[in-house]
């Protein structure tokens, strides 16, 4: 087969490979310039949420997936991320604890719940119910807790309440264990 024919037949493959190579390089480049910014934004977001929850926060540490919140070197609380299984997927919630048994407050970090129904878990009307609530009471009323579910969004509401309660209990256990050990 003459060389020209071989090239002609291989051309589609060569072109596709070249296009993919160019696209991959472009993506790698864009990814590398945006990654630091995206990460910085994430940190900023968490920091903003933490200081919204603990207005007296002067600094925080992050260890064992638990944020310890300090105000002038005095520990004023803990925070951690709880993941609930919502109606539309995972719900990430930042939970703040005042002490081992009391919730300071919650903030929904991200979710994919139904707009207008489940998405109302982000509203103060719902999240406000968790403020100063005992960890044990973080459950829907019909499940024996203190939280009023959002009308038409029982699954989302329950996912949040249960995730908060269960994760808080786990984290408190981790904290107690580490205190005993240390």
């Amino acid at each position: 087969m003459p060389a020209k024919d071989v090239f002609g037949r291989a051309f589609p493959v060569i072109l596709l490979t070249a296009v993919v190579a160019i696209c991959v390089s472009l993506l790698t480049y864009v990814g590398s310039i945006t990654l630091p910014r995206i990460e910085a934004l994430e940190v900023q977001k968490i920091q903003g949420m933490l200081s919204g929850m603990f207005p007296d926060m002067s600094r925080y540490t992050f260890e064992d997936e638990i944020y310890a919140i300090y105000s002038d070197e005095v520990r004023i609380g803990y925070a951690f991320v709880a993941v609930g299984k919502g109606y539309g997927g995972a719900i990430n919630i930042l939970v703040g604890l005042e002490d081992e048994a009391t919730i300071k407050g919650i903030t929904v970090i991200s979710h994919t719940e139904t707009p207008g129904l489940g998405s109302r878990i982000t509203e103060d009307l719902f999240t406000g119910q968790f403020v100063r609530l005992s960890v044990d009471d973080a459950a829907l009323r019909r499940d024996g807790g203190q939280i009023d579910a959002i009308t038409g969004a029982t699954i989302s509401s329950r996912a949040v309440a249960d995730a908060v309660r269960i994760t808080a209990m786990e984290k408190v256990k981790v904290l107690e264990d580490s205190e005993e050990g240390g």
Partner: protein
Amino acid sequence: MGKFAQEFAKGLIITNPVLVLLLGLCPALAVSTSIDNALGMTLAVLIVLLGSNIIIAAMRNFVPSITRIPIFIVIIATLVTVVNLLFHAYLPDLHETLGIYLPLVVVNCIVLGRAEAFASKNPVVRSIADALGMTVGFMLALLMISLIRQMLGTGEMSVFGVHFFSLPVLSSRPVAIFILPPGGFLVIGLLLGLFKWTGVLKR
């Protein structure tokens, strides 16, 4: 009317991508729950469609037909990912509002449809006009659908956090079905029927 204007204008009504070509119905249904989403989606589609139309029109003379679809898809997917990353880094609020629908632009048939039907056969300048026209047509359709859905489904008229007015009864008792998937089908179906009936979209 110049060629450029002609290619631009056809996307608005005569071959409106959503209402006439019935392309991109998936994003049109998914993101038309609020005007914010509709406008954010339009911005993403504008960047991707403009980029893909320009690149594909520029490459049209040497892309072999046998591998054209994979090449188009790779180019479109790359553009979508770039837009996704840039939005994430520089427009985090918009990125959050659009959520999963932003990466889903890659399966928006309007983008591949225009690449295949127009950009691969026409010069760059006319492909730019085509991309702009199609995007504006997409925006008009999305705005119409999302306006109805947002009004009925939430009773609130607000755009990007700026609140304009609330409807008296609907804001306290919104018809939630309109911002759920079935509401999207209802609204788009009724709009299509209305346009067919009144003959607005007659070619």
